[in-house]
């Protein structure tokens, strides 16, 4: 059976519309900012074989992988005949789900004329899952999944339409803020049911044969489009590597990230075997997200996602790798390394597609502002949560963007200052771009952010550092790296700020914390930057006079007038020195 061009196009438009409608529904009804502001969730339709039929647009990019394994595992456990209409399954168990326990998956089977055809799913970040910490999830120092929180392994929270009260009570009694998380669970279930209703309308209208044929055709066409992009690259093997200073538990032992990308006749293999093995720290995962996000960004960033988006991609990650860690390896900070993995894969292809690869971005999920406690006036618990972005790398034809979330986060919004202060006893003293934090280059890296917060009451701060000091966002083609970030604390009564690290640190009232993100790398030789743009950057206070001279070889008068003759002379002498000292590398 085949679908005619019209039906095909109609179904092609309808499938993402269903997932997007589910997402809009979830976002508006959820209780926690991880869903409504950070958009740390995905909605999707997956068939019984675990193939992705459609997924929502926006939100957190690294959710583009790892949905199918949940379904294939669920079908293996219950059998194809083990699902009934009205079932709702809940799972977050790391042996298969491979992410931190806060990411709770809810899925609902869809039957057409009595036959199980697919599942409607929502994976979303709960504000709390029990365990030692709350908010964004436990830190990398949490040693195992039991410390991390409640583990739910493919349980039916509803069976044939009846809620499992025992399971419900167990969940309720073992998490903080149960009203919030269970509210979110109900929103997830409602979104899944909405997806099922919409799919039923489609199947009823076009019939099973036509829809399934159309889905097959959509997968094929998507695959061809991706192959077309990759076939423009020269066949070969491309490599790049980077590292984290340490894993947060074992000091002085860098975490290696290595990508080996082979391109042959439109197919691509991303081999991450060279990355570190699994660690004692909770930065492990079981995920294809790093490879998939990079591939998607290179092959069709604006097209909807489905199984065909990745059929021409082979991902190699051996068992025991940091991204294919074996249960019960700790995974509380599962996504910390993913943006750097994505960036390393993208950078490896810089010579293959020089006009399509920017310099590195800050590469951090973080800039996490997390402060929590009990407000002594209202006796209510509060959690300050915001994610601050950093600088993105210079591009082959323009500067990088400033103060923006990582490649693994899409429509993730910071908390508004007024909203934070309305709900929590803090004062945001500053949210600003940091001068000179962007890597110099012909096209400059974007600037990083300093978010400075004063707490009026005592509470606990999370200061989980980024651990990229030794490997800041790198430049390309002669561009320089961006500055790195960190956490800085001024305790009440003290004068200066000190660098700090660690989770759930008690901090007394009237202290101040600076949450600092990293800048983006520069693209191309900064000595080739248009002096007029350098002057403008100084006027705009994006760079200092000193940086203009030091990195860009541009001389400005006190009135910011460009001294062209002095600039040419300075640049020439710099170039002679620089080229002798620097080997040719990207």
């Amino acid at each position, binding site marked *: 059976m085949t679908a005619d061009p019209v039906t095909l196009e109609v179904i092609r438009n309808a499938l993402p519309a269903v997932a997007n409608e589910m997402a809009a529904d979830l976002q508006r009804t959820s209780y926690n900012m991880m869903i409504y502001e950070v958009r740390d969730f995905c909605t999707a339709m997956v068939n019984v074989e675990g193939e992705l039929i459609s997924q929502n647009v926006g939100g957190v990019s690294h959710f583009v992988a790892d949905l199918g394994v949940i379904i294939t595992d669920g079908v293996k456990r219950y059998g194809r005949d083990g699902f009934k209409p009205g079932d709702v399954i809940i799972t977050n168990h790391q042996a298969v789900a491979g992410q931190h326990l806060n990411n709770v998956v809810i899925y609902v089977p869809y039957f057409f004329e009595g036959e199980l055809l697919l599942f409607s799913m929502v994976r979303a970040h709960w504000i709390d899952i029990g365990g030692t910490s709350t908010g964004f999830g436990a830190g990398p120092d949490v040693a195992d999944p039991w410390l991390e929180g409640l583990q739910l392994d493919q349980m039916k929270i509803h069976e044939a339409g009846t809620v499992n009260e025992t399971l419900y009570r167990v969940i309720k009694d073992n998490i903080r803020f149960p009203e*919030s998380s269970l*509210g979110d669970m109900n929103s997830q279930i409602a979104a899944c049911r909405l997806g099922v209703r919409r799919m039923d309308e489609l199947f009823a209208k076009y019939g099973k044969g036509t829809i399934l044929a159309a889905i097959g055709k959509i997968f094929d066409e998507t695959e061809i489009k991706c192959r077309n992009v990759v076939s423009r690259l020269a066949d070969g093997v491309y490599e790049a590597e980077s590292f984290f200073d340490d894993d947060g538990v074992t000091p002085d032992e860098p975490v290696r990230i290595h990508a080996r990308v082979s391109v042959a006749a439109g197919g691509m293999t991303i081999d991450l075997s060279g990355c570190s093995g699994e660690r004692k720290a909770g930065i492990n995962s079981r995920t294809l997200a790093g490879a998939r996000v990079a591939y998607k960004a290179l092959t069709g*960033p604006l097209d909807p996602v489905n199984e065909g988006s990745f059929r021409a991609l082979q991902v190699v990650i051996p068992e025991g790798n940091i991204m294919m860690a074996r249960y019960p390896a700790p995974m509380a900070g599962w996504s910390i390394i993913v943006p750097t993995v994505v960036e390393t894969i993208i950078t490896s292809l810089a010579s293959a597609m020089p006009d399509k690869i920017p310099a590195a971005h800050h590469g951090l999920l973080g800039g996490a502002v997390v402060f929590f406690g009990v407000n002594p006036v209202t006796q209510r618990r509060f959690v300050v949560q915001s994610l601050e972005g950093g600088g993105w790398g210079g591009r082959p034809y323009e500067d990088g963007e400033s103060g923006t979330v990582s490649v693994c986060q899409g429509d993730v919004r910071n908390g508004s200052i007024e909203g934070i202060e309305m709900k929590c006893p803090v004062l945001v003293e500053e949210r*600003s771009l940091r001068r000179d934090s962007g890597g110099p280059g012909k096209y400059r890296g974007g600037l990083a952010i300093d978010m400075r917060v004063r707490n009026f009451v005592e509470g606990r701060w999370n200061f989980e550092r980024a651990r990229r000091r030794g490997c800041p966002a790198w430049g390309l083609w002669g561009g320089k790296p961006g500055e790195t970030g960190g956490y800085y604390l001024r305790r009440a009564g003290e004068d200066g700020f000190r660098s700090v690290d660690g989770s759930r640190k008690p901090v007394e009232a009237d202290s101040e914390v600076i949450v600092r993100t990293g800048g983006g790398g520069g693209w191309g030789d900064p000595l080739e930057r248009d002096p007029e743009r350098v002057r403008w950057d100084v006027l705009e206070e994006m760079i200092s006079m000193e940086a203009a001279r030091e990195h860009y070889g541009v001389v400005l008068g006190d009135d910011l007038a460009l001294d062209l003759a002095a600039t040419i002379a300075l640049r020439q002498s710099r170039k002679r020195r620089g080229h002798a000292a620097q080997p040719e590398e990207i």
Partner: protein
Amino acid sequence: MIVAAIDIGGTFTDLMAFDERSGRFVQAKSLTTPAQLVQGIIDCVRKSGLESSDIAELIHGSTIAINTLIERKGAATGLIVTRGTRDVYGIGRGNRPESYNLFFHRHRPLVPRHLTCEVRERARASGEIHEPMQAADVQAACEKFAAEGVQAVAICFLHSYVNPRHEREAGEIVRKLMPGAYLSLSHQILREYREFERMSTTVVNAYIGPKVGGYVRGLKASLADIGFEGELTMMRSSGGVMTPEVATERPVAMMESGPVGGIIASARIGSALAFRNVISFDMGGTTAKASLIRDGAPTMASGYYVGGYASGHPVMEPVIDVVEVGAGGGSIAWIDEVGALKVGPRSAGADPGPICYRSGGTEPTITDANLALGRLDPGDFLGGEMELDAASAARGIREKIAAPLRMSVTAAAQAIIDIASAKMSLAVREVSVAKGYDPRDFVLVASGGAGPLHTLAIARELHIPTVIVPLFPAHFSALGMLAADERHDFIRTCYADLAAADFRQILSICQEMADEGNAGLRHKRDAEQRIHLDLRYVGQEFTLSVPVTREQLQGADRPGIRAAFDRLYEQRYAHHSPAEPVELVNVRVAVIGKRAEMQFPLLPAAGRVTAAHMAEVYLGDPERPVSCPVYRRENLGAGARFAGPALVREHGTTTVLFEGDGCSVAPSGELIIAVRGAR
């Protein structure tokens, strides 16, 4: 008394006027002259034959505000903010809606960083002053602005929505030191929390202020020159009208002043025919727009992103909620790299236009497809003013679509129409089904030059039982403006648990907003106030606006308000949580000066319904045309009845009815069509 409306569109400037004494409509059209919009208006008035001195009121919708922003032709603008927040405007929310795009762009700020000045001052969320304002910092900013040639100043301090004192004080200093500058204070534009969105809205207002102000003054002067002595009012994005003075202070309110006219007209026509629930569907040359009207009132959104969500400027000003898709008469059909047939979003627009316009277009469009199917008549387009080239349209469709897909020309044309209809159906779905409304409870009002051609197919797809084709469907926006009420919307963030909220304070805030609204009102006699509370379950971020009465506030009717919230929540999201506490976030007041209902003249009763001629038209089966009657709209009297398949032609559009669709003509002239198989 004559009331006239003038709508400036991308291609044409439309005039519609209604003479209450004679019950007669007058219409005129002139080409829009982008460089001299005011001249286009004056031309249009002249062309209409109306005596300028007879026009009692002239209502105007214009693209001047939005174009000034999109083309970035606004004033040099400076921004004054609280210390520590200089980069809030540039950073925005730090998000990247295009998740996988490595080359994304954020909004491009309208104020450079060096013209954003920080001032030592600080309020807390409670409104309490944490740090007094240093006037010297404001003075220093003014000196810098003056030296840099700044013409417009925006001021946005943290928490000014609850305590605007510092903004007012800073504003006074700016007025004194920069008397010629245009000034916008954030609390006067938007009294709602979320600093970035409020700041962006205020900056946009300041940026377009001088230009829009000049336009309004120029228009008043030019109208006076041709003898106009009546009242001039401006359309706002909310669907209401405002005085030129309000428009000059708050130009950001007229951002979407063009498209809303058609929605108001849909609401009025629906109500007049006793249909309170209406979906307005307008399809023009480049896009189709759908909008939902419930209980006679258009659905409002609290704001939107000019230039799109991913890279646009947030403007939080009440706007009629519209879903737009890239499907219009000029939308181009094409085949992508894997052989899939696509329609839009690229459009041939008016220039070069569809192939059949003979103005150099080479890509087949929706209009070409309608022509190939016989739904448009090459000799009777725009009343015969423009002959269409059917042979070239067919050739274009054959070469670009039919041959590569191995289809006949008519099959390809039908495929183009079907894909476009499905896209438009998704837009109609998005305003209805996706928000919890069942389209079967609605009627579809079709307008725009291309709307009536496609509306029956869309209605059938969504099971909408009734379609209405109004009079003047191609001049509908201007017609709607004639019916627009005066309207002023206000919002105030007022954060409290509903259980503990101080209703006396809420009432006094409502009164304050109502007084401000009444002061700017002309039609005060039957003025109406609508009060909404923005509520949410504790812990949520998004609110629902719940309508409440003044009596409910006076009686502190917490249970009633609470129950209304739960009901609305259930309807929108299919679940609710009666045990969860609810909190109040904002209070909204709309002050509405009602205009007298327009009395449409009644048509003479129908005689015998006779077709002008028969035509061979493809109506679904691309291999077999159907011979169907073609009626002239102007020949259809009140009570006339006929059934599809049929075409109804009039100046500017054609209505297509399929087998089994039944049409009757209302006494006031609308075509009311029962859709076959919709229930």
